[in-house]
């Protein structure tokens, strides 16, 4: 899969079957807004949780995104997917800024705000054996920490393109940048994550 872009970067998962499957699911036009939101709410929550590291913040962001999407309810159903992820991305950016200000204030008063990050929660897959659940939980937490250490644009790119499975064009539309920028951000994100997630080798 040779794909040299204008930035001499490669889209590392251009032929990935998992991405294609997720994209196919997301490209299916929903019959109603209720159906659409029901199909994306869980993924949106998990994505926000990875980005923010805090369950309540993630729920707030998803709720705000749903409410804002209502303003576009008269748009064609085919536009809901890119619109929703674009709204969610902006909400995440706003929440990150707000949390950064709060951290600065807390640090000024000599208090650390790290306690806001969720403690380890039980991995919610009851079918897996305990050892596997602990390993998966640990890997999930490590992924979240590694993602939160990335620059915002790289993190957004990885979340939308790799995890949510949007196409390069959809990711670019959600992020408000060009396809080439998406590939550049993604390549840099993967490079940084390789360093952060060395234990996964």
């Amino acid at each position, binding site marked *: 899969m*040779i794909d040299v872009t204008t930035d001499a970067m490669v889209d590392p998962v251009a032929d990935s079957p998992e991405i294609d499957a997720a994209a196919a699911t997301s490209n299916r036009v929903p019959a109603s807004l209720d159906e659409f939101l029901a199909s994306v709410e869980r993924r949106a929550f998990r994505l926000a949780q990875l980005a923010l590291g805090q369950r309540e913040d993630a729920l707030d962001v*998803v709720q705000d995104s749903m409410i804002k999407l209502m303003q576009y309810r008269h748009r064609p159903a085919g536009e809901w997917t890119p619109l929703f992820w674009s709204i969610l991305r902006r909400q995440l950016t706003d929440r990150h800024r707000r949390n950064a200000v709060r951290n600065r204030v807390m640090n000024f008063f000599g208090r650390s705000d790290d306690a806001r990050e969720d403690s380890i929660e039980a991995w*919610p897959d009851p079918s897996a054996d305990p050892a596997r659940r602990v390993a998966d939980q640990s890997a999930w937490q490590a992924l979240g920490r590694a993602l939160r250490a990335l620059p915002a644009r790289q993190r957004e790119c990885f979340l939308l393109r790799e995890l949510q499975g949007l196409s390069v064009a959809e990711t670019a539309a959600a992020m408000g940048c060009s396809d080439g920028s998406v590939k550049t951000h993604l390549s840099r994100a993967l490079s940084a994550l390789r360093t952060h997630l060395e234990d996964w080798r």
Partner: protein
Amino acid sequence: MSSHEPEENQTLNDAMTKKSRALFEQASEHLDSATSNRLRLMRREALAGTPRRTPYRWLPLGAAAATILGIGMTWWLPQRNAAVTPSVASINASDQDLVPDDDADIYDWLGEAPVAVSDSKADSP
């Protein structure tokens, strides 16, 4: 495969993204019931157009209004007190009013009248 990216890195990227995606799918599929219910409720409220219930929504606005009010009162009250406080000239003028013109002779006489001095003070050097 890009000539700029070593094959080993590409393999690592593939493995890492595959594992990340598997974890994400698993986590999204298996949500605890409390979170699932909250998401469902949020969806219903959003679709019904119910405004978001945020109890502290107006707190920043209230704090800002209180601050502005405090600054305004601090600026306004000293000016008001200064307006109420009489000036020195007006105090002097009112002191003069205490002595009626008709009785001025009496006060002149009192001022020139001899003062009684006690013996002990008179004998002292």
